């Protein structure tokens, strides 16, 4: 309970924490949104009436009973494309976010415990990376490599572990000053033991909210790259659909149904994760009220 944070020790506290999370309206709304998008992604096969890449109608048909969201410029069913898009966006978003949170947490905890020169150098690197314009860096890298899902994920991870590392390190540093860590050191506990048993459980709430924020960032980043036509050409995400819309003359045709649904889905999904992270911070990290 130090520093106004709740660790995650014991099943009862865990259940209580989860209960208080769902008492928070912001978190619950966000969670429900994410849940719905998740269900869409998982059951895409049964929810989509057509295969997403097959030509099943005339070009640029407006929404109708047979094609809920109309068709794109090649006669593909947009509703099915948007449903399958949930899968791609979530897979990339979650994978990239989990990896960057893992990297960030490891670096953060390590820096907080080792301190000294290693910490100082890492912080310099982090400050440098923070001043990089991410999209420009990603474009420069993609200029040389043919993008596929793995490369997109690696690029997102490489650029987004930093924020997690920063918050975790700050928290780890202050935990290292606390009495229970001093006591553990006094009885000869190893650094690894302190990291795993004392620091990690106590930074967990921060890591959790950082993870949710990373998902949000990763989904937006992937969407931006795909919108620019620089995503994985094999998989159609919401960003890719908007790229097709721009290239396929949706504007000249005034085809709003081509542009509104995919962007709306990105916005709602990102909003879901945003609300979850706000709720998480309100309940778990009440002293770190950001926005």
């Amino acid at each position: 309970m130090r520093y106004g944070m709740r660790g995650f020790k014991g099943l009862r506290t865990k259940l209580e924490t989860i209960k208080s999370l769902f008492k928070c309206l912001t978190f619950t709304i966000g969670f429900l949104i994410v849940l719905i998008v998740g269900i869409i992604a998982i059951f895409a096969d049964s929810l989509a009436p057509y295969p997403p890449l097959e030509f099943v109608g005339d070009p640029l048909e407006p929404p109708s009973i047979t094609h809920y969201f109309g068709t794109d410029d090649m006669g593909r069913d947009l509703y099915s494309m948007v449903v399958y898009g949930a899968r791609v966006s979530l897979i990339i978003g979650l994978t990239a976010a989990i990896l960057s949170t893992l990297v960030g947490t490891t670096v953060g905890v390590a820096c907080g415990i080792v301190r000294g020169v290693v910490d100082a150098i890492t912080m310099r690197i982090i400050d440098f990376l923070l001043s990089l314009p991410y999209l420009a860096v990603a474009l420069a890298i993609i200029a040389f490599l043919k993008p596929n899902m793995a490369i997109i994920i690696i690029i997102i991870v490489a650029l987004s572990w930093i924020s997690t590392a920063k918050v975790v390190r700050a928290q780890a540093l202050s935990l290292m000053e606390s009495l229970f860590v001093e006591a553990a050191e006094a009885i000869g506990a190893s650094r690894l033991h302190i990291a795993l048993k004392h620091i990690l459980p106590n930074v967990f709430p921060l890591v959790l909210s950082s993870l949710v924020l990373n998902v949000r960032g990763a989904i937006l980043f992937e969407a931006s790259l795909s919108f620019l036509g620089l995503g994985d050409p094999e998989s159609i995400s919401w960003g890719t659909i908007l790229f097709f819309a721009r290239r396929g003359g949706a504007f000249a045709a005034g085809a709003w149904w081509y542009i509104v649904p995919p962007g709306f889905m990105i916005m709602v999904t990102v909003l879901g994760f945003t609300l979850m992270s706000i709720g998480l911070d309100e309940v778990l990290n009440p002293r770190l009220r950001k926005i």
Partner: protein
Amino acid sequence: MSIARYIVKKIAEAGLTVFIAITVAFFLFRLLPGDPTAAFIDIRLSPEAKLILIKQFGLDRPWHEQYVLFISNLLQGNLGISFVYRGTPVSKIIFGPKLFNTLVLMGTGMFLGAFISSFIGLLAGWKRGTRFDRTIVSASYIGTSAPIFWIGLLVLLILGSYFRLIPMSGTISTEVIHADPLTRFIDYLWHLAGPLMVIIVYFLPIYLLYVRNTVVSLLGEDFITVLKAKGLPDSVILFKHLVRYAMITVVTLLAVQSPLLVTGAIITETIFGWNGIGLLLYNSVLKSDYPVIQGVFILTIVIVVVANLLADIAYAFLDPRIRYGGTR
């Protein structure tokens, strides 16, 4: 720390960051293409140009000599020759109308965004908990979740395609290129409207939320009570006293989020065909024009670092705690 020493220290730090960035760019653009000369030489260049480039950048020499030549060329503004624009020097492509257009778009957009968001944020924070405040906060969360390219597409679809209020693409209409300056200026502003709107909407919600929260966190402070007790009207407390804190918040954000400037420029310029640096970078990526990508890459980092530096200096003037040796 005196203000002069503070500024000198910040300039030195900025210089170091730029130097590291240039070094990273040097290695990145030599490791990634596979062929270490690919960053400067391509089959699209003429044989004479190739020979000149090999000599200028020492492409036949060991890498440490190349590095020294790279830096010295860079300091003289020599970034190589574009593969695409018929052998034009990269610096000539970047430093001209394109950079000007981007600075106009992003500068105006950021300034207006900061201005409008400070105004609304101050009001929302002051009226904390009211329906006005809740509406503004909810709208801002939705705004931060909407991807900027989607906002751009919607603006283009509604204002451009349906109502034909703004042009669909470009910086200036072809018909007015030879017209008098005033007509050209008006046409330029007309083209600016769409992308500018998007940039403002891009910056608005996040700035607004931070300003609002700054105000909320100050509401319980003693000096507010004193100002109220003095009988000052709300408008004076807000727009004379609290506005100072709001400005510190905005300047902090300008510094922390200056990389967003580049993202905003790339996406908005691509959507609206605004002839700036962002569009140049995008087109160069599509055409593998490595020297231009490298040049723009270095330039964007310099812009971000300079924006940070300006924000740090503005801090010193806005926040006396920094001037008098406190910590930020």
